């Protein structure tokens, strides 16, 4: 195994002679992926496997009058055609609510629509055939008669008495509402020298995983077991859900997740078509495969953001923020998504606005309303990009109003680095953050003074460049406070089982999952370091509910901080067990021994005594040579869940430098910098690449990505020609640096790093654009910042 040399190692307090913590170890799964030897669900083919295609509603809201399936059933290759009512006999509906979100409500959702469709793209019939092509051919022969209903598509009027209520039994179109009033908000605004108010808009966008959602469900009647090959982030959660809704016990369901072609939060939810595929397998007694095509992905993969936030900030002449107030409105789909709900993003926005700052006076309201559009739910950085852009946009507006530099106003208001532990006005608990260190570091890294002078001289030549900052906080390592306390069967703990094989190598089975972020590499680093063995002797297995400890999977930046700690503890425990055997063999006190590079050594001198492989050989093949009252244990499981803190908050700051062409409205990104603090950095290269990838997803939201709906609830740009994603040519290089404030909740001290990039980038880009537009005394606050919107702000169109 090579150690990547592109990045210098970060020294860590955990360094041992054979430590991999803080080193850029390459991921073990890269070679096969580069050779076309990946094992994506799209690639899975099983004996007797059939393929399903869905007939989907062309209307956003309609009653299903009749479905004629006779012709489709006669088509070539067709095995079965089923409607919602037929499928409902084997798959029970679900309701996406959690008890800790007070007052949240939603309606039962079926795997296939029964009697009524509530968004354009909802499935109304399933065609199972020998091939996907034949299933699609037959889908065209299904005749559905609809009676169109009024579509609710404007969040602003969703609660008006004149607006149709999508689910009459709920009484109104309100899914969830929350209000918060902390400190003395009115007094805060009263003492301000300036109060600035504006409205921020965040476009609906989606994850656009390059591999669409894919599932192969295989009900084996002989075994009475359902095996599901699924590109999911949470195999154990899905095991529970398949069992619950298909009338099975959890032990009758095995979920297998190998390579996943991108997830980003898209693949951690329950999708109706995937539940239908599993139900079809059970009905038909054979494997059934569903792979969404790109158009289906756009109309069924969860969307996110779509918030309108009216926001206000009060500030004194000397730059002290005196009060913050927001009013948030978000239009989700017709159902709250199961099982995590569609209220978490709005709830997070209320929690997070103002989070980096000392101002104690904060008032917030959010309303989550139902819409006849595709469903919305948690996507990478959930709520953070919105909360960060609102907060940082307000801070820059306030700075401009009082004529203060944006760095200076942040220095005067960010929570001091020696103020921890402390809590935010919304009640978020911070163990240890480093806003000021991060800000100082980014100012130096980007050579801020030089950029300002460059900006000034270029302005005189009619070139308009802007610099934007965004300080942020980010939720990682969630405890049960996120979902478990609300009644969801989503575990926040995770486990690792380590096994020494007979040649002295280690297998690790982990409950977290690999989505390309490098969880398997991080797990191997933790175990190899804790045990004392070369990392190429450690193989990590994830994504199999039959063979891994019960765990939460990968979401909310938890895999390294939680899964890695479980691996660390398991590696340490296995080390003790090996040293106990070695102590007997060597007639030595185990405490006097250590393991280094796979060899048991004297702890004080490092003198080699016996190899781990020889210890394994004795334990497995010659246990007769060990004392009769001694039993060697070479498999160990350890679990970990954060205990002292509900979440391990991380923090950081991003900066964007860009140029706005005031004639065309085009934005050219010139540079982007990130300083972030995710505690102990286990693998610097993987952390930096998580940050970079996350930043570009945030840039997509700021500049390009938008699911455009018309008034009738039709998605207008559900393809990759019309929905713009960030491509290589438009993206900048991204410089990443770190401040390290480990969490004391775990021995490793690692917090999550998967979402910070996405959290801060949109706010930084927005502030940079508005900095560039400052000479024109205008601003943009509606994402994405398209050329048209920028030209409108400039009064040129």
């Amino acid at each position, binding site marked *: 195994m*090579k150690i*990547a*040399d*592109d990045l210098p190692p970060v020294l860590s307090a955990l360094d041992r002679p054979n430590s991999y913590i803080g080193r*850029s170890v*390459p*991921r073990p*799964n*890269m*070679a096969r*992926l*580069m*050779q*076309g*030897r*990946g094992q*994506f669900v*799209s*690639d899975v083919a099983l004996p007797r496997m059939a393929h399903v295609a869905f007939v989907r509603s062309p209307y956003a809201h309609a009653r299903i009058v009749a479905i004629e399936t006779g012709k489709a059933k006669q088509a*070539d290759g067709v095995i079965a055609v089923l409607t919602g009512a037929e499928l409902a006999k084997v798959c029970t509906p679900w309701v996406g609510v959690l008890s800790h979100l007070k007052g949240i409500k939603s309606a039962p959702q079926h795997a296939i629509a029964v009697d009524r469709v509530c968004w354009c793209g909802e499935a109304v019939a399933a065609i199972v055939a020998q091939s996907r*092509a034949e299933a699609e*051919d037959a889908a065209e022969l299904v005749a559905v008669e609809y009676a169109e209903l009024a579509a609710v598509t404007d969040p602003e009027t969703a609660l008006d008495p004149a607006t149709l209520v999508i689910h009459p039994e709920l009484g109104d179109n309100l899914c969830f509402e929350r209000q918060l009033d902390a400190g003395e908000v009115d007094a805060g605004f009263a003492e301000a020298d300036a109060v600035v108010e504006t409205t921020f808009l965040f476009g609906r966008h989606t*994850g*656009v*995983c*390059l*591999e*669409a959602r894919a599932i192969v469900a295989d009900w084996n009647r002989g075994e009475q077991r359902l095996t599901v090959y699924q590109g999911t982030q949470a195999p154990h959660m899905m095991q529970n859900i398949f069992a619950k809704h298909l009338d099975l016990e959890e032990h009758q369901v095995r979920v297998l997740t190998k*390579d*996943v*072609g*991108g*997830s*980003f939060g898209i693949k951690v939810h329950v999708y109706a078509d995937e539940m239908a595929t599993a139900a079809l397998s059970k009905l038909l007694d054979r494997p059934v495969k569903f792979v969404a*095509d*790109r158009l289906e992905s756009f109309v069924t993969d969860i969307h996110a953001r779509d918030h309108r936030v009216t926001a206000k900030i009060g500030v004194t002449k000397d730059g002290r923020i005196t009060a913050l107030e927001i009013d948030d409105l978000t239009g989700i789909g017709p159902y709250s998504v199961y099982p995590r709900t569609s209220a978490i993003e709005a709830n997070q926005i209320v929690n997070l606005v103002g989070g980096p700052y000392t101002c104690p006076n904060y008032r917030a309201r959010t309303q989550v309303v139902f819409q006849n559009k595709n469903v919305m739910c948690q996507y990478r950085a959930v709520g953070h990009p919105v909360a960060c852009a609102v907060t940082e946009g307000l801070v820059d507006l306030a700075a401009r109003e009082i004529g203060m530099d944006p760095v200076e106003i942040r220095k005067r208001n960010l929570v001091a680095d020696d103020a921890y532990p402390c809590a935010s006005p919304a009640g978020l608990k911070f163990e240890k953050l480093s806003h000021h260190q991060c800000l100082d570091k980014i100012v130096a890294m980007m050579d801020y003074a030089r950029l300002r002078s460059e900006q000034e001289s270029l302005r005189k030549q009619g070139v308009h460049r802007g610099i934007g900052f965004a300080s942020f906080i980010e939720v990682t390592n969630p405890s049960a406070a996120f979902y478990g306390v609300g009644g969801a069967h989503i575990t926040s703990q995770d486990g690792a089982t380590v096994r020494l094989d007979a040649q002295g190598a280690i297998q690790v089975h982990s409950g977290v999952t690999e*989505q*390309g*972020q*490098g969880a398997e590499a991080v797990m191997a680093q933790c175990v190899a370091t804790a045990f004392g063995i070369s990392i190429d002797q450690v193989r990590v297995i994830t994504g199999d509910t039959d063979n891994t400890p019960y765990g939460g999977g990968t979401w909310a930046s938890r895999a390294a901080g939680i899964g890695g700690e479980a691996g660390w503890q398991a590696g340490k425990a296995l080390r003790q067990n090996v040293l106990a055997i070695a102590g007997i063999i060597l007639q030595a006190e185990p405490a006097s021994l250590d393991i280094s590079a796979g060899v048991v050594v004297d702890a004080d001198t490092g003198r080699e005594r016996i190899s781990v492989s020889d210890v394994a050989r004795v334990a497995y093949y010659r246990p007769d040579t060990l004392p009769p009252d001694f039993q060697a244990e070479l498999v160990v499981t350890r679990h970990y869940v954060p205990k002292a803190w509900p979440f391990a908050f991380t923090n950081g700051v991003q900066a964007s430098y860009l140029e706005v062409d005031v004639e065309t409205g085009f934005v050219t990104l010139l540079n982007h910098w990130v300083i972030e603090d995710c505690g102990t950095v286990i693998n610097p*290269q*993987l952390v930096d*690449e998580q940050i*970079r*990838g*996350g930043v*570009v*997803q945030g840039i997509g939201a700021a500049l390009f990505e938008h699911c455009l709906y018309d008034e009738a609830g039709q998605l207008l740009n559900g*393809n*990759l*020609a019309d929905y713009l*994603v*960030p*491509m*290589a*040519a438009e*993206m900048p*290089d*991204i410089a990443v640096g770190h401040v390290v404030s480990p969490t004391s909740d775990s021995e490793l001290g690692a917090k999550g790093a998967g979402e910070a*990039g996405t959290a801060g980038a949109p706010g930084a880009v927005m502030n940079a654009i508005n900095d560039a537009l400052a000479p024109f005394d205008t601003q943009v606050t509606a994402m994405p910042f398209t050329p048209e919107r920028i030209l409108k702000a400039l009064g040129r169109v």
Partner: protein
Amino acid sequence: MNTHLCEISLTVNGEPVRAQVAARRSLVDFLREDLGLTGSHIGCEQGFCGACTIRVDGQIVRGCLMLAVQCEGAQVETIEGVSDSGEIADLQDAFERRNALQCGYCTPGMLLSAAQLLGRGGVPSRQAIREHLAGNYCRCTGYHAIIDAIEATARARAGEEK
């Protein structure tokens, strides 16, 4: 239904292949489903994302926009073939050192596109590399690491120290 079968003969990764294919079968479906060459991926089926990039007679094409029947007599090379031949071993090594892939779904197409650029020789600028990859979508990396890996390979091939 458009299920008219055609017989085609072609070479895939150096091996002769003779097959009956539906006239409507795309090249990438043919490779994946009929030949089991699942290294070529499907992302959008509209030619935008580049996940299905395949080399036909020395030129990279979109496997979703070409029909299998158009490949009569053609030399088709996929990621499996160029990996086994060792042709892009240095590029793959650079991708690994630089962690220029995360989920790996775009990677086969990305490597074949990059190989075409590198095949022209010289050391392209970072912006030239970025523009060459403008038809290959990667959601994971943010592209920076991919550009680094391609640039490093170009420099090494040109005999420059990086």
